[in-house]
């Protein structure tokens, strides 16, 4: 199941040229970029691992692309996303999108949990979470 998360997630995966253009747009707005990765695809998993520190004072997207590619080399089968933070008035993430996803995305299973009074709780369970971190998409 193709995960949709962040901006552009309903589009086909962005090419490096398209990513470069988006990063240039972010830098043009003065938004520092950062790279994060994870192998836990659960939608509630908001805290991804940081790939290095956020990059401040960049002028040109080449440096950001370099970090994305370094991260891809280190984690060839993880999810990787690019974040652009608006440190101005908004003080929040202005743009965040996936720049890599695993080749196979097994998807989720729905667990039902019985409760008192015949209530049922539902839970989303990513199949990959049954395997230890670091070995989930190999």
């Amino acid at each position, binding site marked *: 199941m*193709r995960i949709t998360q962040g901006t552009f997630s309903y589009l086909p995966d962005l090419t490096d*040229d398209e990513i470069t253009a988006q990063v240039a747009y972010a830098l043009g707005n003065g938004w520092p970029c950062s790279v994060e990765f994870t192998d836990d695809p659960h939608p509630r998993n908001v805290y991804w691992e940081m790939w290095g520190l956020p*990059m401040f004072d*960049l002028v040109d997207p*080449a440096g950001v692309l370099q970090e994305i590619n370094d991260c891809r080399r280190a984690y060839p089968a993880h999810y990787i996303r690019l974040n652009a933070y608006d440190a101005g008035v908004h003080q929040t993430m202005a743009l965040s999108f996936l720049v890599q996803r695993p080749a196979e995305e097994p998807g989720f299973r729905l667990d039902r949990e019985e409760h008192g009074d015949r209530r049922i709780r539902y839970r989303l369970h990513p199949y990959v979470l049954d395997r230890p971190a670091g070995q989930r998409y190999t």
Partner: protein
Amino acid sequence: MTSFDMRGPAPSPDEPEPDGPPAVETLPEGATVDLIQERADSHIDEVLDQLDTDLVGLATVKTRIREIAALLLIDRLRARFGLSASRPNLHMCFTGSPGTGKTTVAMRLAELLHRLGYLRRGHLVAVTRDDLVGQYVGHTAPKTKEVVKRAMGGVLFIDEAYYLYRTENERDYGQESIEILLQMMENDRDDIVVVLAGYRDRMDSFFASNPGMSSRIAHHIDFPDYSEEELAAIGDMMLRDAGYRLGAETVPVFREYLRRRQEQPRFANARSVRNALERARLRHAGRLLAAGDRVGIEELTTLQPEDFLGSRVFDSA
């Protein structure tokens, strides 16, 4: 499980890249291009003329920069004919005493390379050892890489680059920084131009102990010290920009000041001139206020001999 597929029709994959340069076709063998037009289109003459007018003297430096500009312009044309498409090596070394205009020229160079299409942005990031080298194990690499990323698309200007290498301590973290720079100067040649700056003799010994660095530098440009005339002309220019002038009796005093200052330690050429003028302005302002008279444009803009004679430089006399 089916996906939440709400994708619209896929855009055609071979759309032109929005920011990239328009694809240029290789010119046929018999074709010719108009050099005058090409030159005008690149707008490099504005930068070169500005270099000429903004900086006094430095004739050899200006000639070298013009030569490099000409080479790059021709290289670009050759590429249009399908000749030698590989990008020339542009890393440089500027040697000379402090205050001889190295940073200023590097700034113009960045703009020039930007206009010629060799740099995407054309900004200058000026750093020294402290910006590149860390304090503890594992600190240097990220620090250097961060600086390199900031300079991408422009010029990385490393002032007093020889401090990166400390002969007396092999385990100095500077070495690590040098290695990252070397790698980047090779791999990211399209993204960044490195300019190393510093004193001539120290730079020479730096290159002697770092042959890898030396072989990656394509152009060595030497910045000579300014003569007294040039220093005076630089002073005139700075005063004009600031809206001041020297009174008739002040001119010889200023000359004498320059002559004495040149002899003293830590003389930093144009920068010393700038500092001297700043201090003269201070004395000038103090003098006017102390006198408490009525003043007009004449008094407000004219520096008098005593504004310079108050300097420590004249103490020894």
